[in-house]
């Protein structure tokens, strides 16, 4: 038998929805097998079945050709299956070493024997090229290093089947490259990898074979080398998807946002995280702020939207000074804001969809009458937005936001913000963690708003998005704008140089 793990005809139903419908997944020994599908396609459910967290209605799991019973995570561990979750399961105030051995500590009469563990971990780390400092605290190391710790955890437990759940969602481009190398190293050492993702580039780069799921159904398994990106995305989405963004030239109008000399000091260090930033955004254009994460993009947006105090400089919206105004007043002056972290800022996850859709409007006469909410109107409005923006959810407007898929959560936020009919739409990493279909949709919506004559300010960490969507690119480096360029005239390499601070362009 050539398959190390096989899931045959797995069917899993939830009330009102079939999450997995007769799905077959066969993992060969020593391969990187990608599991591709949009949000809500049933990837997570399938993995939960593999881990024994859910019991399937139909279907069996085989290891090396023999049917095995998986009735809980402990069984999965015994079978040598390990998983790196999208959100790491690490204890932040423990060291790297302590995290790795957590749960499988070697002890002698109840006393930890750290030395043996340390030796073993260092050995594994050297063998697979996973460099970590065993004594560093998790809270002090980067996300990329945390991921290595997760991988080491699996290796330390001698897992043979390694599952990576969207491992690149949290990494920088350099770290992604590094991870791909590590994954290839792991299969070279005889491990088998199941790689859950919806990023086609990564599949093309790393995976040998790819299984595609769509809406809970099994679409097929293909050899990656014989399949183009377009074919893969068509299998995933079920229709042809344009991977490049089409748009007509910008017809710019009046200056909508005018930022001059804006400085924001960090509360912790007292240094400027945004220093002397000056730029305009005109009606009818998408201006994109590009840069490596942590160069002051977030703080800049917080200062613009009133969520952070600007120390000097001024922000004008449509000719009105809104520097350090109250958040609500800024919103009422015509700024909408799609925040970077949709769970932290964008949504009240315990509210239902309808409540979230009126989160910026509940106090307006449309929804409020002498202090009381107009429920009928709220639900009518929510249904209207759901229809208009094609937001999908299990129970319509009454679905708790928490139970919706990431793409639909983001759609809800975008619906809410666009429907405020702002002069300026600020959109921070609007496609982070989303699949191809949702990305296409969101880009189209942003471009539509811009073509309608709104000003759009976008912050993105993904160069491809920056180049495809924007009409003008501002590059931010260490809190300063170092370039103001036209995407049609600039190359990826040049942008990369600006972003790393190696080159400074002329900015007004």
């Amino acid at each position, binding site marked *: 038998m050539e398959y190390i793990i096989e899931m045959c005809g797995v069917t899993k139903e939830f009330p009102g929805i079939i999450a997995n419908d007769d799905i077959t997944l066969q993992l060969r020994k020593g391969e990187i097998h990608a599991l591709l599908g949009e949000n809500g396609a049933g990837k997570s459910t399938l993995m939960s079945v593999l881990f024994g967290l859910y019991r399937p209605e139909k279907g069996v799991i085989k290891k090396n050709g023999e049917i095995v019973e998986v009735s809980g995570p402990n069984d999965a561990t015994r079978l040598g299956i390990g998983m790196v979750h999208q959100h790491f399961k690490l204890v932040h105030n423990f060291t790297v070493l302590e995290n790795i051995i957590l749960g499988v500590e070697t002890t002698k009469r109840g006393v930890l024997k750290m030395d043996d563990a340390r030796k073993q971990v260092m050995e594994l780390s050297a063998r697979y090229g996973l460099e970590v400092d065993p004594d560093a605290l998790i809270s002090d190391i980067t996300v990329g290093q945390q991921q290595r710790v997760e991988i080491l955890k699996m290796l330390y437990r001698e897992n043979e089947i390694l599952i990576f759940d969207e491992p690149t969602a949290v990494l920088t481009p350099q770290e992604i490259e590094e991870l791909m190398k590590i994954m290839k190293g792991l299969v070279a050492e005889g491990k088998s990898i199941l790689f859950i993702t919806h990023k086609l580039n990564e599949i093309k780069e790393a995976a040998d074979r790819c299984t595609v799921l769509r809406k809970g159904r099994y679409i097929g398994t293909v050899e990656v080398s014989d399949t183009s990106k377009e074919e893969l995305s068509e299998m995933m989405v079920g229709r042809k998807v344009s991977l490049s963004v089409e748009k007509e030239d910008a017809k710019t109008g009046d200056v909508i946002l005018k930022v001059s000399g804006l400085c924001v000091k960090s509360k912790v260090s007292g240094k400027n995280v945004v220093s002397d930033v000056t730029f305009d955004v005109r009606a009818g254009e998408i201006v994109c702020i590009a840069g490596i994460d942590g160069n002051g993009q977030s703080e800049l947006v917080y200062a613009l939207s009133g969520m952070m105090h600007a120390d000097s400089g001024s922000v004008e919206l449509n000719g009105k000074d809104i520097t350090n105004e109250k958040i609500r007043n800024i919103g009422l002056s015509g700024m909408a804001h799609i925040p970077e972290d949709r769970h932290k800022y964008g949504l009240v996850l315990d509210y239902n969809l309808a409540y979230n859709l009126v989160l910026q409007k509940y106090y307006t006469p449309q929804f409020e009458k002498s202090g*009381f909410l107009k429920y009928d109107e709220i639900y009518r409005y929510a249904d209207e937005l759901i229809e208009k923006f094609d937001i999908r959810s299990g129970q319509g407007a009454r679905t708790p936001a928490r139970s919706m898929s990431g793409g639909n959560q983001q759609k809800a936020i975008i619906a809410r913000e666009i429907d405020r009919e702002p002069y300026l739409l600020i959109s921070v990493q609007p496609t982070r963690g989303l699949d191809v279909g949702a990305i296409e949709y969101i880009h189209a919506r942003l471009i539509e708003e811009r073509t309608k004559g709104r000003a759009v300010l976008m912050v993105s960490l993904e160069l491809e998005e920056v180049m495809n969507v924007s009409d003008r690119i501002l590059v931010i480096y260490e809190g300063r704008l170092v370039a103001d360029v036209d995407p049609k005239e600039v190359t990826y390499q040049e942008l990369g140089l600006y972003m790393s601070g190696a080159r400074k362009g002329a900015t007004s």
Partner: protein
Amino acid sequence: MERIKKAFLKDSSVNVLSSFLAVAVGLIVGFVILLISNPSQAAGGFGAILRGGFADMRSMGQVLYIATPIIMTGLSVGFAARTGLFNIGASGQFIMGAYAAILVGVKCSAFLPGITLCIAAMIAAMIAGAVWGSISGMLKAYCNVNEVIACIMMNYIGMYLVNFLIVHTVFDSLRNQSMSVPGNANLPKLGLDLIFRDGNSASSANGGIFVAVIMAVVIYIILEKTTFGFELKACGFNRDAAKYAGINEHRSIVYSMAIAGALAGLGGALLYLAGAGNRIDVVDVLAPEGFNGIPVALLGLNNPIGIIFSGFLIAYLTIGGFNMQLYDFAPQVIEIIIAIIIYFSAFALLLKNYIELWRMRGHRKPAAPEAEEAAT
């Protein structure tokens, strides 16, 4: 509208069921303890608990009387919980309110006529409680002090401050207690004492229970129907998102704690204006009503309407405990039994989850019997 009602009914039936199950489990464990401590008397003693408030009309009146303050502190804790805050400071707010009510009742009785005296005392109590609660709220909102710490400190400060103030204002040095309010400051009985009586001994039932029920309804409306409640709950669920949506999250926290404090403070007023001759003891003990609010809120699943019923239930069991003294049980055992029942009541939330799981499984098609078996 139809759909809202339907969904509400469905969810609330699970809530009610889980609370009842929690109490049932508590009663069973309580009975086991009775059996262990004194087998021969267990059945009788347990019967006394079960009959509790229904033993006679006077007991029923006492249930109303005892339920009143703990419904108020339960509302205080429950309201704060719905807005994301753990108000463990109901005790301090309660005693501040109680003192304010007695102070007004005693000092103003000469010039405030009729019912206005009682109303003034209640308003004073709410203000005192609100001030006390909002101090914890401000510490939380503006200095990022955890409200649990702030509330606990304010409990002690409140207790000592009230003892100090009583000695200097409304002290009865013979009894080492506060004075009791004059008769015209008391809540009207509304004839309840005449309905709920056993022969010549009248119960302490009074109009306060109506005040408590009305407050529960008011809180329910604030939380579920108003823009204000929408903001407070949004803040409780996700402070960052509330801020992002332009809600002043600092102010919301202060308002939440002020309202929670006002509710507890009013609870204090309702107890000491009950016309049962209650006085505040000048001793270094935190007011237990404040803490009893916590199980009341838990058992009511923080729902204001649920809290009315859980308040009644705990009052009922308390009366049952009094009646148990007829049997041969140490008073401590009685206390333990009541505590155990309350303790298990706190499992209502846990049981709710189980019921929901069970309900979900019921929805599953019968086509998968082997999965059913394996899951159990």
